């Protein structure tokens, strides 16, 4: 049967018009290009596509000793693990934390880079402007591990600088337990993500602002518009397109923490037994269940729930973007 189709295919190439036959000639001519691409595809297939098949584990009684093959041979259990997760005692808590941290980050960390870019743009002293900007995006390149280390040092209840400062200013009498009380975690996550990433994202908005036509500002000034009115009526409307595109990116990656990312890193590195009721999120829970406790199928089900939400967000925001701005990512 296979031979037959092969022969048929051969026959067909003979009968094909010159244009189609030349495709094969093209491929032969481009053989190295195709070989290069196939090399890359092999790597991407193994490390990106194979794990996608692994999603099946979420519906199976999977055991790690059965390896990749087990993904296709394990016993099907349907929605067992999803049901188990939904009825877990901490389900509400984990979902609330995940959504709350993500939404708070979108709400507070999204406007910050825009504001920062406008502030940089308003500086007339070029050297200071460059200095301030250069400093602002340095933390982007620093590992979350180092940033968490800094937080532990600065927020310590015993001679941490932040508590020293608060006590010195008379704002608090006792040291505030920033890292060991659940009440501070959400605020901490948002603030530190902003500290680390606002300067980085300001770059893109500053680039958009510097693309605006300077004569607009001159004309507005002639008409008697002050600095703030020029910002409101020229700068902001001028970068609206960029703002929308970046907002869509942020919504698409909402559960990871949006623009500033890092939901997992923060909860993993700064979460502990004392603040877990506010710091435990889907990603850290899946990690603990899966790699730490060896409940692979259960963890995959939790991961999958999150991926589904993420995909809906990516496509949803892309669709909205197409509608509103005619801009889309794919």
């Amino acid at each position: 049967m296979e031979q037959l189709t092969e022969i048929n295919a051969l026959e067909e190439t003979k009968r094909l018009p010159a244009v189609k036959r030349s495709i094969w000639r093209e491929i032969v001519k481009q053989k190295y290009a195709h070989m290069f691409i196939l090399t890359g595809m092999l790597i991407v297939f193994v490390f990106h596509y194979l794990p996608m098949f692994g999603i099946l584990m979420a519906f199976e009684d999977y055991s790690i000793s059965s390896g990749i093959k087990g993904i296709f041979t394990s016993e099907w259990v349907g929605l067992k693990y999803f049901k188990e997760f939904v009825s877990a005692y901490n389900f509400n808590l984990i979902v609330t934390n995940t959504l709350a941290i993500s939404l708070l980050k979108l709400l507070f960390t999204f406007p910050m880079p825009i504001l920062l870019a406008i502030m940089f743009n308003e500086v007339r002293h070029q050297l200071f402007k460059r200095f301030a900007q250069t400093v602002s995006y340095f933390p982007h390149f620093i590992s979350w591990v180092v940033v968490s280390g800094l937080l532990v040092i600065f927020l310590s209840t015993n001679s941490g600088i932040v508590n020293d400062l608060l006590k010195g200013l008379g704002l608090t009498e006792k040291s505030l337990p920033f890292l060991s009380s659940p009440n501070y975690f959400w605020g901490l996550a948002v603030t530190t993500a902003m500290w680390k990433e606002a300067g980085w994202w300001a770059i893109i908005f500053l680039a958009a602002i510097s693309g605006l036509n300077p004569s607009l500002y001159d004309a507005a000034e002639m008409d008697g518009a002050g600095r703030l009115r020029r910002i409101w009526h020229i700068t902001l409307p001028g970068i609206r397109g960029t703002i929308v595109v970046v907002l869509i990116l942020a919504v698409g990656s909402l559960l990871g923490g949006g623009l500033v990312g890092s939901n997992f890193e923060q909860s993993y590195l700064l979460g502990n037994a004392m603040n877990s009721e506010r710091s435990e999120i889907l990603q850290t829970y899946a990690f603990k269940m899966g790699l730490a406790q060896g409940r692979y199928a259960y963890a995959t089900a939790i991961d999958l729930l999150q991926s589904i939400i993420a995909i809906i967000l990516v496509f949803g925001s892309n669709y909205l973007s197409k509608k509103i701005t005619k801009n889309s990512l794919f």
Partner: protein
Amino acid sequence: MHRRTVEDRIVDTLNISLLVIIALVTMYPFFYLIIVSFNNGLDTSLGGIYFWPRDFTLNNYAKFLSDPKWLMAFGVSGLRTAVGAAVTIFFTCLTAYGLAYRNLVFHKFYFSFFIVAMYMSGGLIPYYVVLRSLGLLNSFAVYIVPGAVTIFFLIIAVSFFREIPAEMEESARIDGASDLTIFFKMILPVSKPLIAAMGLFIGVGQWNSWMDSAYFVNKDSLRTLTYRMMEVINQGMIPTDLASAERAAAITGVTTFSIQVTAMVIAVIPILLVYPFLQKYFVQGIMIGSVKG
């Protein structure tokens, strides 16, 4: 120049003051790390060091360099940075060269293949199963191989290669050069800016990463610098018995805390050193990478 109005003065003063505060809040933590790393650890634990080392010492660095655990981690991080950057640059550029080929047959299919992989993932556990089945767990290769083709940089490299004038390649082809020769002898040499940019970004990513060391490795000899730091931080968050640590520190003045800070400085310094070079490239990088629509 324009006459400055009252509003101008107010806006400028407020703006500059705020930016100065932001710059201070951003830089001071790193400055603090540096001064503490040069201060006697026992003295540091008394508190009150804000602007300059009080009891200057190099012992923290000496201890770091003589502690096999930290030194090993430093070596692993350095090695994965160098090897990881080289391997990823090579395979990503190779694939990108193919994808940038003019009149490439199947190019729609190829591009969809890579773009889908950029947006979809199977999640941590299935990924772990794949690594386990390939025997990559507990090996140095787990830091290098999975990221050998990085799709983000692939897209940047394709758009870079497309800018290279076609005549260059064509004349080489007329002289009988094959694609292999063209790629190695011609494309790679003219792509120095691209390679430099990729090297810096991938290098920084490799240097900073700790998750793969936490997930996929449990051999001491393969732990990275950031992983070791994470261990110390995790212990430090919950107050422990300080007395025993301090007894051990009595002679050298090096405490767990002071060596942790030193490790943090050592983790930050390489980034500080390449920062001016990073800066040169990333504005275009972030533009291509995030708003290609």
